[in-house]
Protein backbone atom coordinates (compact mmCIF):
# COMPACT_ATOMS: atom_id res chain seq x y z
CA UNK A 1 0.00 0.00 0.00
CA UNK A 2 2.78 2.38 0.98
CA UNK A 3 4.50 1.98 -2.39
CA UNK A 4 1.25 2.83 -4.14
CA UNK A 5 0.91 6.07 -2.18
CA UNK A 6 4.56 6.88 -2.76
CA UNK A 7 4.36 6.28 -6.51
CA UNK A 8 1.14 8.28 -6.69
CA UNK A 9 2.58 11.44 -5.17
CA UNK A 10 5.93 10.98 -6.86
CA UNK A 11 4.32 10.84 -10.31
CA UNK A 12 2.11 13.84 -9.70
CA UNK A 13 4.55 16.23 -8.09
CA UNK A 14 8.17 15.13 -8.33
CA UNK A 15 8.26 13.51 -11.75
CA UNK A 16 5.57 15.75 -13.15
CA UNK A 17 5.18 14.98 -16.86
CA UNK A 18 5.41 18.60 -17.90
CA UNK A 19 7.74 20.23 -15.42
CA UNK A 20 10.29 17.49 -14.89
CA UNK A 21 10.48 15.65 -18.22
CA UNK A 22 8.73 18.03 -20.67
CA UNK A 23 6.33 15.49 -22.07
CA UNK A 24 3.23 16.53 -23.96
CA UNK A 25 4.55 20.04 -24.40
CA UNK A 26 3.06 20.49 -27.86
CA UNK A 27 -0.54 20.13 -26.78
CA UNK A 28 0.29 21.75 -23.45
CA UNK A 29 1.26 24.93 -25.28
CA UNK A 30 -1.35 24.74 -28.02
CA UNK A 31 -4.47 23.92 -26.01
CA UNK A 32 -3.85 26.01 -22.90
CA UNK A 33 -5.44 29.26 -23.99
CA UNK A 34 -8.73 28.58 -22.18
CA UNK A 35 -9.37 26.73 -18.93
CA UNK A 36 -12.42 24.83 -20.22
CA UNK A 37 -10.61 23.22 -23.18
CA UNK A 38 -7.59 22.55 -21.00
CA UNK A 39 -9.80 20.59 -18.57
CA UNK A 40 -11.21 18.52 -21.45
CA UNK A 41 -7.81 17.59 -22.82
CA UNK A 42 -6.43 16.95 -19.34
CA UNK A 43 -9.26 14.54 -18.53
CA UNK A 44 -8.72 12.73 -21.83
CA UNK A 45 -5.00 12.36 -21.06
CA UNK A 46 -5.69 10.87 -17.60
CA UNK A 47 -8.13 8.43 -19.17
CA UNK A 48 -5.90 7.30 -22.04
CA UNK A 49 -2.79 7.01 -19.83
CA UNK A 50 -4.83 4.95 -17.36
CA UNK A 51 -5.74 2.55 -20.17
CA UNK A 52 -2.53 2.35 -22.22
CA UNK A 53 0.11 2.11 -19.48
CA UNK A 54 -1.27 -1.08 -17.88
CA UNK A 55 -1.88 -2.54 -21.34
CA UNK A 56 1.66 -1.84 -22.44
CA UNK A 57 2.87 -3.21 -19.12
CA UNK A 58 1.21 -6.52 -19.99
CA UNK A 59 2.76 -6.49 -23.47
CA UNK A 60 6.16 -5.64 -22.03
CA UNK A 61 6.04 -8.34 -19.37
CA UNK A 62 4.61 -11.20 -21.39
CA UNK A 63 5.93 -10.44 -24.87
CA UNK A 64 8.85 -8.04 -25.11
CA UNK A 65 11.24 -8.37 -22.19
CA UNK A 66 14.27 -10.60 -22.23
CA UNK A 67 12.89 -14.09 -21.60
CA UNK A 68 9.31 -12.85 -21.44
CA UNK A 69 8.16 -15.53 -23.85
CA UNK A 70 9.08 -18.30 -21.39
CA UNK A 71 5.40 -18.93 -20.66
CA UNK A 72 5.06 -20.35 -24.21
CA UNK A 73 7.51 -23.12 -23.41
CA UNK A 74 11.18 -23.50 -22.52
CA UNK A 75 12.34 -23.26 -26.14
CA UNK A 76 11.11 -19.65 -26.31
CA UNK A 77 12.95 -18.50 -23.18
CA UNK A 78 15.91 -17.07 -25.11
CA UNK A 79 14.03 -14.50 -27.11
CA UNK A 80 14.45 -10.81 -26.37
CA UNK A 81 12.03 -8.75 -28.43
CA UNK A 82 12.52 -5.46 -26.57
CA UNK A 83 13.74 -3.74 -29.76
CA UNK A 84 10.16 -3.97 -30.98
CA UNK A 85 8.76 -2.03 -28.05
CA UNK A 86 8.53 1.37 -29.78
CA UNK A 87 6.47 0.08 -32.66
CA UNK A 88 4.27 -2.11 -30.47
CA UNK A 89 3.63 0.61 -27.90
CA UNK A 90 2.70 3.21 -30.48
CA UNK A 91 0.45 0.73 -32.26
CA UNK A 92 -1.30 -0.08 -28.98
CA UNK A 93 -1.76 3.59 -28.24
CA UNK A 94 -3.12 4.46 -31.67
CA UNK A 95 -5.51 1.50 -31.58
CA UNK A 96 -6.65 2.13 -28.01
CA UNK A 97 -7.33 5.78 -28.72
CA UNK A 98 -9.47 4.81 -31.70
CA UNK A 99 -11.25 2.13 -29.67
CA UNK A 100 -11.86 4.40 -26.72
CA UNK A 101 -13.27 6.99 -29.07
CA UNK A 102 -15.74 4.51 -30.56
CA UNK A 103 -16.79 3.10 -27.18
CA UNK A 104 -17.24 6.50 -25.58
CA UNK A 105 -19.23 7.74 -28.54
CA UNK A 106 -21.57 4.72 -28.28
CA UNK A 107 -22.15 4.67 -24.54
CA UNK A 108 -21.73 8.21 -23.34
CA UNK A 109 -22.49 10.86 -25.94
CA UNK A 110 -22.16 13.59 -23.30
CA UNK A 111 -18.62 12.56 -22.43
CA UNK A 112 -17.88 12.15 -26.12
CA UNK A 113 -18.95 15.68 -26.82
CA UNK A 114 -16.62 17.04 -24.19
CA UNK A 115 -13.65 14.71 -24.86
CA UNK A 116 -14.26 13.71 -28.45
CA UNK A 117 -12.34 16.37 -30.31
CA UNK A 118 -9.28 15.81 -28.15
CA UNK A 119 -8.98 12.07 -28.51
CA UNK A 120 -7.37 12.01 -31.98
CA UNK A 121 -4.87 14.61 -30.79
CA UNK A 122 -3.81 12.31 -28.02
CA UNK A 123 -2.45 9.52 -30.21
CA UNK A 124 0.53 11.71 -31.02
CA UNK A 125 0.86 13.30 -27.58
CA UNK A 126 4.33 12.57 -26.27
CA UNK A 127 2.99 12.24 -22.73
CA UNK A 128 1.15 9.05 -23.66
CA UNK A 129 4.05 7.27 -25.33
CA UNK A 130 6.34 8.75 -22.69
CA UNK A 131 4.22 7.21 -19.96
CA UNK A 132 4.66 3.76 -21.47
CA UNK A 133 8.37 4.21 -22.14
CA UNK A 134 9.07 5.47 -18.63
CA UNK A 135 7.02 2.59 -17.26
CA UNK A 136 9.37 0.26 -19.15
CA UNK A 137 12.54 2.16 -18.23
CA UNK A 138 11.73 2.32 -14.52
CA UNK A 139 10.80 -1.37 -14.45
CA UNK A 140 7.53 -0.94 -12.62
CA UNK A 141 7.00 -4.31 -10.93
CA UNK A 142 3.24 -5.00 -11.00
CA UNK A 143 0.11 -4.35 -13.02
CA UNK A 144 -1.49 -2.43 -10.15
CA UNK A 145 1.47 -0.10 -9.89
CA UNK A 146 1.45 0.39 -13.66
CA UNK A 147 -2.20 1.43 -13.51
CA UNK A 148 -1.40 3.72 -10.60
CA UNK A 149 1.53 5.19 -12.53
CA UNK A 150 -0.57 5.83 -15.63
CA UNK A 151 -3.36 7.56 -13.76
CA UNK A 152 -1.19 9.61 -11.45
CA UNK A 153 1.08 10.90 -14.22
CA UNK A 154 -2.10 11.81 -16.07
CA UNK A 155 -3.26 13.77 -13.04
CA UNK A 156 0.12 15.52 -12.90
CA UNK A 157 -0.26 16.54 -16.54
CA UNK A 158 -3.84 17.65 -15.90
CA UNK A 159 -2.74 19.88 -13.01
CA UNK A 160 0.00 21.42 -15.12
CA UNK A 161 -2.22 22.31 -18.07
CA UNK A 162 -4.95 23.59 -15.75
CA UNK A 163 -2.50 25.87 -13.97
CA UNK A 164 -0.95 27.29 -17.12
CA UNK A 165 -4.37 27.85 -18.73
CA UNK A 166 -5.54 29.80 -15.69
CA UNK A 167 -2.37 31.89 -15.71
CA UNK A 168 -2.67 32.57 -19.43
CA UNK A 169 -6.25 33.75 -19.01
CA UNK A 170 -5.08 36.24 -16.41
CA UNK A 171 -1.93 37.34 -18.18
CA UNK A 172 -3.96 38.77 -21.03
CA UNK A 173 -4.48 41.81 -18.82
CA UNK A 174 -0.79 42.28 -18.12
CA UNK A 175 1.61 44.41 -20.07
CA UNK A 176 4.04 41.82 -21.44
CA UNK A 177 6.92 43.10 -23.62
CA UNK A 178 5.76 42.73 -27.23
CA UNK A 179 8.35 40.19 -28.44
CA UNK A 180 7.59 37.93 -25.49
CA UNK A 181 3.83 37.98 -26.00
CA UNK A 182 2.14 34.62 -26.40
CA UNK A 183 4.66 31.84 -26.76
CA UNK A 184 7.70 33.45 -25.15
CA UNK A 185 6.09 34.36 -21.87
CA UNK A 186 4.38 30.97 -21.69
CA UNK A 187 7.78 29.27 -21.89
CA UNK A 188 9.20 31.43 -19.16
CA UNK A 189 6.18 30.96 -16.88
CA UNK A 190 6.39 27.21 -17.40
CA UNK A 191 10.07 27.36 -16.47
CA UNK A 192 9.29 29.24 -13.28
CA UNK A 193 6.51 26.79 -12.41
CA UNK A 194 8.97 23.98 -13.04
CA UNK A 195 11.40 25.51 -10.58
CA UNK A 196 8.55 25.68 -8.09
CA UNK A 197 7.77 22.01 -8.66
CA UNK A 198 11.43 21.13 -8.10
CA UNK A 199 10.89 21.97 -4.46
CA UNK A 200 8.70 18.87 -4.15
CA UNK A 201 11.85 16.86 -4.83
CA UNK A 202 12.70 16.66 -1.14
CA UNK A 203 9.26 15.37 -0.23
CA UNK A 204 9.98 11.66 -0.50
CA UNK A 205 13.76 11.45 -0.44
CA UNK A 206 14.09 13.67 2.63
CA UNK A 207 14.09 10.88 5.18
CA UNK A 208 16.62 8.67 3.46
CA UNK A 209 19.38 11.23 3.45
CA UNK A 210 21.71 11.46 6.44
CA UNK A 211 21.04 14.50 8.62
CA UNK A 212 22.76 17.61 7.37
CA UNK A 213 25.95 18.47 9.25
CA UNK A 214 25.14 21.95 10.48
CA UNK A 215 28.29 23.23 12.15
CA UNK A 216 30.78 22.70 9.37
CA UNK A 217 33.97 23.97 10.93
CA UNK A 218 36.06 24.41 7.80
CA UNK A 219 35.11 26.27 4.70
CA UNK A 220 36.50 23.43 2.62
CA UNK A 221 33.83 21.07 3.83
CA UNK A 222 31.11 23.43 2.61
CA UNK A 223 32.83 23.69 -0.73
CA UNK A 224 33.01 19.93 -1.11
CA UNK A 225 29.36 19.59 -0.31
CA UNK A 226 28.49 22.21 -2.88
CA UNK A 227 30.38 20.38 -5.59
CA UNK A 228 28.79 17.13 -4.56
CA UNK A 229 25.39 18.71 -4.80
CA UNK A 230 26.16 20.15 -8.21
CA UNK A 231 27.20 16.76 -9.47
CA UNK A 232 24.05 15.32 -7.98
CA UNK A 233 21.93 17.96 -9.70
CA UNK A 234 23.63 17.24 -12.96
CA UNK A 235 22.89 13.56 -12.66
CA UNK A 236 19.34 14.38 -11.81
CA UNK A 237 18.93 16.39 -14.97
CA UNK A 238 20.80 14.13 -17.34
CA UNK A 239 20.08 10.56 -16.41
CA UNK A 240 16.69 10.97 -14.99
CA UNK A 241 15.74 7.33 -14.98
CA UNK A 242 18.64 6.18 -12.94
CA UNK A 243 17.74 8.52 -10.12
CA UNK A 244 14.25 7.12 -10.05
CA UNK A 245 15.45 3.56 -9.75
CA UNK A 246 17.71 4.32 -6.79
Amino acid at each position, binding site marked *: MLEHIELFFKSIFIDNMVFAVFLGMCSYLAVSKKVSTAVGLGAAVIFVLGVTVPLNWLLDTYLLQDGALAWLGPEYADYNLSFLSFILFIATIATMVQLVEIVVEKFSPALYNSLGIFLPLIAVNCAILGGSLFM*QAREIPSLGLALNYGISSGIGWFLAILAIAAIREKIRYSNVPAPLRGLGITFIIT*GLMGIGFQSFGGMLTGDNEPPEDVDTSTAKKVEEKKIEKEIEDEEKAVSYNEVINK
Partner: protein
Amino acid sequence: MALLSKKDANLILDPLADNNPITIQVLGICSALAITAELKASVVMALSVIFVMGVGNVVISLMRNLIPSKIRIIVQLVVVASLVIMVDQVLKAFAYELSKTLGVFIGLIITNCIIMGRFEAFALGNGVWRSFLDGIGNALGYGVILIIVGFFRELLGSGTLFGIPVFGDPVAKTGLYSIGYENNGFMIIPPAALIVVGIIIWVQRSRNRALIEEA
Protein backbone atom coordinates in the same frame (compact mmCIF):
# COMPACT_ATOMS: atom_id res chain seq x y z
CA MET B 1 23.96 27.10 -54.52
CA ALA B 2 23.96 25.96 -58.08
CA LEU B 3 22.59 22.58 -57.13
CA LEU B 4 19.34 23.98 -55.80
CA SER B 5 16.92 26.42 -57.34
CA LYS B 6 16.00 29.42 -55.20
CA LYS B 7 12.67 27.89 -54.28
CA ASP B 8 14.29 24.66 -53.18
CA ALA B 9 16.95 26.46 -51.18
CA ASN B 10 14.23 28.28 -49.28
CA LEU B 11 12.85 24.91 -48.17
CA ILE B 12 16.05 24.43 -46.22
CA LEU B 13 16.73 28.01 -45.18
CA ASP B 14 13.26 29.09 -44.02
CA PRO B 15 12.97 26.68 -41.08
CA LEU B 16 16.39 27.78 -39.84
CA ALA B 17 15.18 31.25 -38.94
CA ASP B 18 11.82 32.80 -39.70
CA ASN B 19 9.80 29.62 -39.79
CA ASN B 20 11.69 27.71 -37.13
CA PRO B 21 9.80 24.59 -35.98
CA ILE B 22 10.49 25.21 -32.29
CA THR B 23 10.30 28.95 -31.81
CA ILE B 24 7.65 29.81 -34.41
CA GLN B 25 5.60 26.73 -35.23
CA VAL B 26 5.80 25.44 -31.62
CA LEU B 27 6.33 21.85 -32.67
CA GLY B 28 8.57 19.19 -31.23
CA ILE B 29 9.27 20.80 -27.89
CA CYS B 30 8.62 17.56 -26.06
CA SER B 31 11.92 15.88 -26.69
CA ALA B 32 13.85 19.07 -27.29
CA LEU B 33 14.28 20.33 -23.78
CA ALA B 34 14.98 17.46 -21.47
CA ILE B 35 18.23 16.37 -23.09
CA THR B 36 19.88 19.75 -23.60
CA ALA B 37 21.87 19.89 -20.34
CA GLU B 38 24.85 18.60 -22.34
CA LEU B 39 26.00 19.70 -25.76
CA LYS B 40 26.96 16.20 -26.83
CA ALA B 41 23.50 14.80 -26.19
CA SER B 42 21.96 17.75 -28.04
CA VAL B 43 24.13 17.12 -31.11
CA VAL B 44 23.32 13.41 -31.18
CA MET B 45 19.62 14.12 -30.76
CA ALA B 46 19.76 16.68 -33.59
CA LEU B 47 21.53 14.19 -35.88
CA SER B 48 19.00 11.46 -35.06
CA VAL B 49 16.10 13.76 -35.88
CA ILE B 50 17.76 14.87 -39.13
CA PHE B 51 18.11 11.24 -40.18
CA VAL B 52 14.57 10.27 -39.20
CA MET B 53 12.99 13.30 -40.84
CA GLY B 54 15.00 13.16 -44.04
CA VAL B 55 14.38 9.48 -44.65
CA GLY B 56 10.82 9.56 -43.27
CA ASN B 57 9.77 12.39 -45.54
CA VAL B 58 11.19 10.54 -48.55
CA VAL B 59 9.39 7.30 -47.65
CA ILE B 60 6.05 9.03 -47.04
CA SER B 61 6.43 11.05 -50.21
CA LEU B 62 7.10 7.87 -52.22
CA MET B 63 4.00 6.24 -50.76
CA ARG B 64 1.80 9.32 -50.86
CA ASN B 65 -0.44 7.99 -53.63
CA LEU B 66 -0.77 4.56 -52.06
CA ILE B 67 -1.81 5.50 -48.50
CA PRO B 68 -5.57 5.56 -47.94
CA SER B 69 -6.23 8.82 -46.16
CA LYS B 70 -8.22 7.18 -43.35
CA ILE B 71 -5.33 5.16 -42.00
CA ARG B 72 -2.55 7.58 -42.85
CA ILE B 73 -1.78 8.40 -39.20
CA ILE B 74 -1.09 4.76 -38.41
CA VAL B 75 1.03 4.36 -41.55
CA GLN B 76 3.03 7.45 -40.62
CA LEU B 77 3.53 6.21 -37.07
CA VAL B 78 4.77 2.84 -38.32
CA VAL B 79 7.25 4.50 -40.69
CA VAL B 80 8.62 6.78 -37.97
CA ALA B 81 8.72 4.00 -35.40
CA SER B 82 10.75 1.75 -37.72
CA LEU B 83 13.25 4.53 -38.42
CA VAL B 84 13.54 5.36 -34.72
CA ILE B 85 14.16 1.71 -33.88
CA MET B 86 17.07 1.80 -36.34
CA VAL B 87 18.51 4.90 -34.70
CA ASP B 88 18.05 3.39 -31.25
CA GLN B 89 19.76 0.13 -32.16
CA VAL B 90 22.68 1.94 -33.80
CA LEU B 91 23.15 4.14 -30.74
CA LYS B 92 22.96 1.15 -28.41
CA ALA B 93 25.60 -0.64 -30.45
CA PHE B 94 28.09 2.18 -31.01
CA ALA B 95 27.44 4.74 -28.26
CA TYR B 96 26.00 2.87 -25.33
CA GLU B 97 26.75 5.53 -22.69
CA LEU B 98 25.07 8.20 -24.75
CA SER B 99 22.03 6.06 -25.45
CA LYS B 100 21.70 5.58 -21.67
CA THR B 101 21.78 9.36 -21.20
CA LEU B 102 19.19 9.98 -23.89
CA GLY B 103 17.10 7.13 -22.50
CA VAL B 104 13.47 7.22 -23.49
CA PHE B 105 13.88 10.45 -25.40
CA ILE B 106 15.12 8.63 -28.49
CA GLY B 107 11.87 6.67 -28.42
CA LEU B 108 9.96 9.88 -28.07
CA ILE B 109 11.18 11.05 -31.48
CA ILE B 110 8.23 8.95 -32.71
CA THR B 111 5.73 11.35 -31.23
CA ASN B 112 7.80 14.42 -32.07
CA CYS B 113 5.17 16.70 -33.50
CA ILE B 114 7.55 18.17 -36.09
CA ILE B 115 7.81 14.84 -37.84
CA MET B 116 4.09 14.13 -37.98
CA GLY B 117 3.47 17.77 -38.83
CA ARG B 118 5.81 17.74 -41.84
CA PHE B 119 4.45 14.39 -43.05
CA GLU B 120 0.93 15.78 -42.96
CA ALA B 121 1.67 19.24 -44.25
CA PHE B 122 4.36 18.57 -46.82
CA ALA B 123 5.38 15.02 -47.69
CA LEU B 124 1.82 13.87 -48.44
CA GLY B 125 1.48 16.50 -51.15
CA ASN B 126 4.93 16.98 -52.66
CA GLY B 127 7.55 15.16 -54.69
CA VAL B 128 10.41 13.15 -53.27
CA TRP B 129 13.28 15.62 -53.71
CA ARG B 130 11.37 18.59 -52.32
CA SER B 131 10.09 16.49 -49.40
CA PHE B 132 13.64 15.43 -48.63
CA LEU B 133 14.82 19.05 -48.56
CA ASP B 134 11.87 20.08 -46.44
CA GLY B 135 12.58 17.28 -43.96
CA ILE B 136 16.27 18.15 -43.72
CA GLY B 137 15.48 21.86 -43.40
CA ASN B 138 13.02 21.45 -40.56
CA ALA B 139 15.22 18.98 -38.74
CA LEU B 140 18.12 21.44 -39.06
CA GLY B 141 15.97 24.22 -37.66
CA TYR B 142 15.14 21.96 -34.73
CA GLY B 143 18.78 20.97 -34.32
CA VAL B 144 20.00 24.56 -34.33
CA ILE B 145 17.80 25.47 -31.35
CA LEU B 146 18.79 22.29 -29.56
CA ILE B 147 22.47 23.04 -30.02
CA ILE B 148 22.12 26.68 -28.93
CA VAL B 149 20.28 25.65 -25.77
CA GLY B 150 22.72 22.82 -25.09
CA PHE B 151 25.69 25.14 -25.63
CA PHE B 152 24.56 27.73 -23.08
CA ARG B 153 23.31 25.23 -20.53
CA GLU B 154 26.50 23.20 -20.54
CA LEU B 155 28.79 26.24 -20.67
CA LEU B 156 27.10 28.16 -17.87
CA GLY B 157 25.93 25.19 -15.86
CA SER B 158 28.97 22.93 -15.85
CA GLY B 159 31.67 25.19 -17.33
CA THR B 160 32.41 22.59 -20.01
CA LEU B 161 31.74 22.04 -23.72
CA PHE B 162 31.45 18.44 -24.95
CA GLY B 163 32.71 17.54 -21.46
CA ILE B 164 35.96 19.52 -21.90
CA PRO B 165 36.52 22.16 -19.19
CA VAL B 166 36.51 25.67 -20.64
CA PHE B 167 36.88 27.92 -17.64
CA GLY B 168 39.40 25.85 -15.67
CA ASP B 169 38.95 23.36 -12.85
CA PRO B 170 36.21 24.24 -10.31
CA VAL B 171 37.66 21.96 -7.61
CA ALA B 172 41.33 22.98 -7.90
CA LYS B 173 40.32 26.63 -8.45
CA THR B 174 42.25 27.28 -11.64
CA GLY B 175 41.45 29.59 -14.55
CA LEU B 176 38.34 31.72 -14.09
CA TYR B 177 37.49 29.93 -10.86
CA SER B 178 40.59 31.39 -9.18
CA ILE B 179 39.01 34.85 -9.30
CA GLY B 180 35.76 33.69 -7.74
CA TYR B 181 33.69 32.48 -10.72
CA GLU B 182 31.06 29.85 -9.87
CA ASN B 183 29.13 27.45 -12.08
CA ASN B 184 25.46 28.30 -12.25
CA GLY B 185 23.78 25.12 -11.00
CA PHE B 186 20.47 26.62 -12.01
CA MET B 187 21.24 26.04 -15.69
CA ILE B 188 21.42 22.29 -15.17
CA ILE B 189 17.96 21.72 -13.74
CA PRO B 190 15.32 20.92 -16.38
CA PRO B 191 13.20 24.11 -16.10
CA ALA B 192 16.18 26.24 -17.12
CA ALA B 193 15.81 24.86 -20.64
CA LEU B 194 12.37 26.44 -20.90
CA ILE B 195 13.69 29.78 -19.79
CA VAL B 196 16.59 29.63 -22.27
CA VAL B 197 14.15 28.86 -25.10
CA GLY B 198 11.94 31.71 -23.88
CA ILE B 199 14.91 34.06 -24.15
CA ILE B 200 15.78 32.77 -27.64
CA ILE B 201 12.20 33.54 -28.70
CA TRP B 202 12.50 36.98 -27.15
CA VAL B 203 15.72 37.76 -29.03
CA GLN B 204 14.39 36.40 -32.32
CA ARG B 205 11.14 38.33 -32.17
CA SER B 206 12.86 41.54 -31.15
CA ARG B 207 15.02 41.28 -34.27
CA ASN B 208 12.13 40.43 -36.56
CA ARG B 209 9.09 42.33 -35.39
CA ALA B 210 6.81 40.75 -37.99
CA LEU B 211 6.80 37.59 -35.86
CA ILE B 212 5.29 39.22 -32.78
CA GLU B 213 1.97 37.62 -31.77
CA GLU B 214 -1.20 39.58 -31.29
CA ALA B 215 -2.08 39.78 -27.62
